[in-house]
């Protein structure tokens, strides 16, 4: 009954997909071991000249071991998910949806705060990130939700229930606040809607108007922000002038002018404030836009991007070699083993290594899409498609962030970044893909 590793079972798996995932994980373990090693004295500089295999012995294994434990846990969950036919999983969609909501609400009330956001929940000695699992649960529940509405998604009105369905958990995550993850939700939803048969033009129009709205929002903010800052400067200048004014008449005039500018300032400032109250905070805005010009704030918001660019760029074609990355090991690069792990790859393994990593992901995603196309029903296609969308979005946004073409949103690199919840969820998602693959449509000719 337990399908111990029987030959038939092994043969039923998608080997290319599994091998690329395994390669990614091995690559990630080496990179994590390297990224967490900090050079503190002269002895470390000798490591650079060692033989590659010997270098592996000198990695920092603290985080690697923890990650391996999470991988094992993830493999267990993956096996569990593979074992239950996906149709059966989808039958419990409603229960899963409710469970998901409860979990996300719990984060809001019980969550542990770190780095300015509540994302973690502690259970006993473990802490985990419900928003990670929320992604997978959302894919499963949405697949069942959409497959029930097959062929009835042509009009905008038909899409509204879907938006509401996805919107509730998305909003809960946005409240943490976790902008990155909520963007994942939106991206995955659009991908699945497209696969489920919603009219592409309608979706494009929606995405387009969403983008326009966003750009408009940023433009509006820039306008408000600049006006606010300008008026504030004017006020300060006037105040100075008032202090040194010579004649009574001058002072009176300046006072009048000051009053007027102050009135304008109060108005503009109020608008600026209320803008932030209803949309994003000032610092979030800065964080999202600073990638366009990281040098504008090298010691603040732009620091991460700038150091990452230096790391990746200085890697060159061949890279500086394992343990040779100065940006990584001399700790210039922040959060190296999680969000910015790709920068370490870029620095130590160069264009060759980073390109190979991209190729591995491409193979992985290609196989994922193949599985979606071979699924025996729409539900299977939606499940596999959703997982692929999620992975693709993660990869693009994360790597884009490290090379300065995407804003910093704190999205990890799937199967690669250090992090328990994420790794377990990724492996579970892989299990879902294999689940669909094992129960694929048999082509008989």
């Amino acid at each position: 009954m337990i399908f111990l590793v029987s030959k038939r079972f092994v043969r039923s798996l998608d080997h290319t997909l599994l091998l690329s995932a395994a390669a990614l994980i091995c690559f990630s373990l080496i990179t994590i071991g390297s990224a967490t090693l900090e050079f503190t004295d002269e002895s470390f500089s000798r490591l650079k000249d060692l033989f590659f295999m010997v270098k592996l012995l000198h990695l920092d294994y603290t985080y690697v071991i923890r990650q391996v434990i999470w991988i094992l846990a993830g493999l267990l969950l993956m096996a569990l998910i593979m074992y239950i036919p996906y149709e059966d999983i989808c039958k419990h969609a409603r229960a899963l949806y409710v469970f998901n909501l409860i979990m996300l609400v719990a984060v809001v009330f019980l969550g542990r705060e770190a780095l300015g956001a509540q994302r973690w929940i502690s259970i006993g000695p473990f802490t985990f990130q419900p928003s990670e699992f929320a992604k997978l649960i959302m894919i499963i529940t949405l697949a069942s939700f959409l497959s029930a509405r097959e062929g009835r998604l042509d009009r905008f009105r038909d899409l509204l229930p879907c938006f509401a369905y996805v919107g509730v958990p998305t909003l809960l995550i946005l409240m943490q606040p976790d902008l990155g993850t909520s963007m994942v939700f939106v991206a995955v939803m659009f991908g699945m809607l497209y696969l489920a048969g919603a009219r592409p033009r309608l979706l494009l129009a929606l995405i387009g108007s969403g983008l326009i709205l966003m750009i408009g929002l940023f433009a509006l903010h820039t306008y408000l922000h600049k006006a606010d800052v300008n008026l504030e400067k004017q006020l300060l200048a006037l105040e100075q002038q008032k202090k040194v004014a010579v004649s009574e008449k001058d002072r009176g005039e300046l006072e009048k002018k000051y009053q007027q500018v102050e009135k304008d300032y109060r108005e503009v400032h109020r608008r600026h404030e209320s803008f932030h109250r209803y949309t994003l905070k000032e610092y979030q805005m800065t964080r999202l836009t600073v990638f366009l010009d990281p040098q504008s704030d090298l010691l603040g918001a732009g620091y991460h991007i700038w150091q990452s660019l230096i790391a990746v760029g200085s890697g060159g074609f061949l890279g500086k070699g394992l343990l040779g990355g100065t940006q990584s090991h001399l700790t210039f690069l922040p959060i190296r083993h999680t969000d910015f792990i790709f920068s370490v790859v870029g620095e130590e393994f160069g264009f060759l290594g980073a390109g190979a990593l991209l190729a591995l992901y491409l193979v992985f995603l290609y196989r994922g899409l193949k599985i979606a196309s071979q699924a025996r029903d729409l539900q299977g296609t939606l499940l596999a498609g959703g997982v692929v969308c999620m992975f693709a979005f993660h990869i693009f946004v994360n790597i884009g962030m490290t090379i300065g073409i995407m804003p910093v949103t704190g999205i990890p690199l799937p199967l690669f970044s250090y992090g328990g919840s994420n790794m377990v969820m990724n492996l579970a998602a892989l299990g879902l893909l294999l689940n669909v693959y094992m129960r694929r449509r048999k082509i008989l000719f």
Partner: protein
Amino acid sequence: MATDGIITSRKVEKKLQVLLGLVIAAFALLFIRLAYLQLVEADKYKVMAQQNHLRLIPIAAPRGEIFDRNGVRIVGNQPVYTISFAYLGVEDTDRVIARLARILVGEKSFQGKTAEEIEQEIHKKLQEQKLRLYEPVPVADKVSSETVSRIEEQRLELPGVLIDVRPVRHYPYGDLLVPTLGYVGIMDQKELEENKDKGYTLGDSWGKDGLEKSFESYLRGRRGARQVEVDAQGQPVRDLGVKEPVPGDNLVLTVDARLQRAVQDALARGIARVQKEGYSQARAGAAVVLDVRTGEILALASHPTYDPTIFTRDLSPQEWNEAWAKISRDQSLLNRALALYPPGSTFKMVVAAAALEMGKITSRFSIYDTGRYKYKMDWKPGGHGRVDVVRALKVSCDTFFWTVGAMLGPEPIARYAREFGLGQKTGVELPGEHAGRIPGPEQKYKLWKPLLDNVQRQMDEIRKEYEKRLAGAGEGERAALEREMNRRLAPLQEQYSKIEWELTWREYDTLDMSIGQGNNYYTPLQLANYIAAIANGGTLYKPYLVKEVVAPDGQTVARFSPRVIRRVDVSSKTLEIIRRGMREVALPPDGTAAGVFAGAEYSVAAKTGTAEVHGHDNHALFVAFAPYEKPEVALAVVVEYGGHGSSAAGSVAREILDAYFSLKKAPPTAGLSKEKAAGTQQAAPAPERPAASSGNNRSGRPVAAPQAPSGGAGRGNSSGQPAGVTPPAGSGGGTPAAGPPPNEGETVAPPGTGNQPPATGGSPSPSGSAPEASGEGEGQ
């Protein structure tokens, strides 16, 4: 059903292909960007990565040291600590700065500031260097060793805090040879601009005065560097290599430290003594000792001195202000051995030489002195009786030299003064040397003409003003206005005619000149050198201070040997007569310096000088050489406002010569005590400042800032004074080098004429800042 499914799957297939296309497009974008960063722009980022983690830390070269002729170290080097801070790139920054600020509380450069204020200051400094990430920013300089050890203890909690060591000047013998040594200071912006091509960078120090300035190119050495790999906290992880600095070359001076000490002390004691005797204005002086056989400067003293460590020690702003106020008051940055003084009777040898050489007199020529020459009275009432040239020198007979001077006229006297190197720069290796001034008709005209122009201008202005007012005035007012104008013009017109009279060289000018008064101004160094030429039989050497420049490895870089400026065009017979006269000065019964050298074990030839200064006590001068038979050293001593040449300056000279002859047998460090405090405090009690009258108002005195010491410092505020109507109150008349050096084509600030019209029949009264000695020559 099946077909339906196939159609559906075909539709899905197509959609999945679209998705695949999207994925490939996104990946292509990543690939392109990655290739751009890692292939196209790689070099740029490689450089940036290196800037991040490789730090080139400059190592200052130890400056060359300065030794006396016997190898005694007068100036050495000593380590000083600087604290810098490098930006961390982590949230810790604020915490570390707060901790550092707490440690730095009480540090002298932050005196009186709370930890919060220091914190803010550090933040500000960091902000200023915002774009150069990780470059350490200097936070505190010259910190105490206690602070350094506290930082060392807390090293782990203070990432980014760096301690640098650099060498600074050390003076084992306190104020010895101050201010001739000069001092070292950080270059200001302008100096940096001008010397950029010599490899100086921001924050570099260099010699700002004295020998430190003149020999900068030898002393500075070449800086080295250490390349260090650092982490994001700025902590060094490893050394990548060191380029050792090349220390500067050492100077070996002609100065004998023992004699220098003795000279400084003698000068300080002498001045203190004179003060006690009632010459309250006597506060400063100078002394020069030369080797007559080579022109080597054996000692060069200027009093008061300052404490040289104020430029190297960790001073609180308050302490610095105090030290600076003292320096400004004493004008101790001024090297008085190179400043200008009227020579008084020490000039008489020039007149004697001129008269003998021109054949106006012979050694047998004599006059009978009744105590007056025309309208001039000799310093000794009743006169000296019959005097020939030797006796005239011995008793310093003014009448004799007036007679001879009148026979000669100004031009020959000036020629022989120049022959002996007076009124010319000696070329000594020190900045800020003055040429001095030899009087003459042309020179006199140049001095007075601008003054005349000034009065003329004032009169023109008044006329113009009334012209306008008269034009607009009614008939009735006109007469009143004209009266008013004339009333205002009258004093100016009087001034004008007096000045006009002064434009021409008069007989009394020649007379004043003949006894070293009038417009004679020479430096003590020139006087000593002129005596040396008399002593050695007519060779005028270039006086010099540096014998040798030696590389740190002991190799000689440059050696300076005696240089002859010229053979003085005076016959040896004439010189012999003059020497005899000078010898007589030191002999009883009535030699003017007989008392000073009573009991001396060596034979001395000397000449006293008392230069009258209007409104002040006289300057006391003394020149001498010894031994008489086979001269070795010549010296000149000046005590400002010291009263009489023989008593004030003569006793200093006696002490100096005693020291010179006794030191010939002593070891090279005799009489030197290490770590001596500033001589101004130790060697002589700081003189009480006279009550607010004249002494306080030394308006014309140079106030030398450390950025621009000596040299052109003489301007003071004299040039800014409106000449004419009111002369600067109290006037620093007679203060050496007070006015701009008159010889370099510069116009001397004119003597005030308003309240002190020049006395007809006398010389121009001294006032303003033009140093003037009264013509009422008095010599002894």
